[in-house]
């Protein structure tokens, strides 16, 4: 109960401090991502295995959140899909770099296969060599699938750089290897609750 109340409160905070400023100036319908490590055009070797701890696995996980909820532990670099009966499917993710991490409650508002990529103006300024538009496909930094979180610029998406899983390098998005994001995409509908947790600050 307390956890739920706290989350509700945090989502209000989030709306006030994170979501609104972040959403300003961006069209919500465009596919954007601001990851500084992006390497557009790089086609990932999908046969490369992740380190064991970041491989998709069923783990013991007790929670009051109902089955079907996604819970991201930013500091652990894990995304859990609650299964009920005290277990969850755990995926390795890459998370926001320092200053680009956030927490709260959002819902998946849209799903897209092989999304197009439109680097936002801030990113073009920093990296003028980037394409203004890149059609969805194997070399696209957003990878095979994207799930949009609320009306924010944040997404759960695939990646063409499997070696970034487990690292804090993004601008607040959660990146997964394509095999994992395809697996997750098939399990969660639009409307799925996404709880993002961070290490508390002092």
């Amino acid at each position: 109960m307390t956890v739920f109340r706290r989350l509700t409160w945090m989502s209000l905070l989030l709306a006030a401090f994170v979501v609104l400023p972040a959403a300003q100036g961006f069209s919500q319908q465009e596919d954007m991502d601001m990851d500084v490590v992006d390497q557009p055009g790089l086609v990932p070797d999908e046969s490369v295995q992740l380190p064991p701890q970041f491989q998709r696995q069923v783990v013991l996980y007790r929670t009051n959140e109902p089955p079907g909820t996604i819970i991201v532990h930013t500091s652990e670099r894990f995304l859990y899909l609650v299964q009920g009966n005290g277990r969850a499917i755990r995926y390795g993710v890459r998370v926001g770099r320092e200053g680009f991490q956030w927490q709260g409650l959002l819902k998946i508002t849209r799903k897209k296969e092989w999304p197009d990529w439109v680097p936002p103006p801030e990113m073009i300024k920093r990296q003028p060599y980037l394409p203004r538009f890149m059609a969805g496909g194997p070399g696209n930094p957003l990878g095979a699938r994207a799930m949009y979180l609320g009306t924010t610029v944040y997404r759960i998406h695939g990646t063409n750089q499997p070696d970034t899983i487990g690292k804090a390098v993004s601008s607040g998005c959660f990146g997964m290897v394509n095999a994992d994001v395809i697996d997750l995409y098939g399990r969660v509908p639009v409307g799925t609750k996404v709880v993002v947790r961070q290490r508390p600050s002092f």
Partner: protein
Amino acid sequence: MLKTSSLLTGGAIAMLVASVFVPVDVAGAQTLKAVKDRGSLTCGVSMGLPGFSNPDDKGVWSGLDVDLCRAVAAAIFDDAGKVKYVPLNAEDRFKALQSGKIDVLSRNSTWTMSRESEFNLSFAAINYYDGQGFMIRKSAKKDSALALGGSKVCVQSGTTTQLNLADYFRANNMTYQEMTFSDADSALKAYDSGTCDVFTSDISQLYSERLKLSSPNDHVILADVISKEPLGPAVKQGDSQWLEIVKWSHFAMLNAEELGVTSKNIDEALKSQKPAVKRLVGTEGAYGEQIGLTKDWAVRIIRQVGNYAESYDRNVGTGSKLGIPRGLNHLWSEGGIQYAPPIR
């Protein structure tokens, strides 16, 4: 007259009570003094169990259980290195505590009722919730122990593991074929060669046994935990202050994790205005002093040993060869049952 006599009686009772309890208290609180006089903590550990207590080729001990000893030493001496390790086999471990050969036993020992009563010892905390689980081949594509009906299971004979296995399958109306072996290594070899579909043991063991298989990555350990094996440090009964020191050393590491305090940001935490953080790091209150330590007792632990997550990851979790998921050992607020009372 009547009043005086009752006062006298009351006074006599108070003195009696005092004379009974004060000496016990003084006699009981000797461990901390003895440790300080000696200049080091004597800690009973295993003969060598990777992840929990294990010496390297230079004789330097590390592990989750070793970190508990280092935390106690850090709290007392502000030096986590002031620990003398005494390797003990399963048979000698509790006697070593009784005889005073060691100050604390931190040796992957299961907390049971009879161990406390028969050996006059107290378990101080549970620093690792273990329990029996199952390992299967990834290719079996099963993610629940309830789907193991009809399997061939390799297990060590004459163990509680074998009994738990029987109970679990019976309770869930599943049949299985048991293949028993007198030692764990033979059972594992038989599983590796394909004699069995399933290998069962305590989950912490399954992760270290998996490393010995010809192709570890082809095997998964199921999330199910079918028995209770709470592992933790124990002390001799009769010194409540010492019990508190060991207990709160573990709780300090858990509370630090919950509050986001790590070995890396401890200096920042000292400047925190959050009341719970202030109480942990001693910028508010005198909690350490109340158990015979200093105000900065927890800071010493966190700086030198880290919080519970740091210790877990380094020794048995994602930063170690074992790679055991947190599971039951996650904080209560993050999917597990590790829970520390608050410092207040």
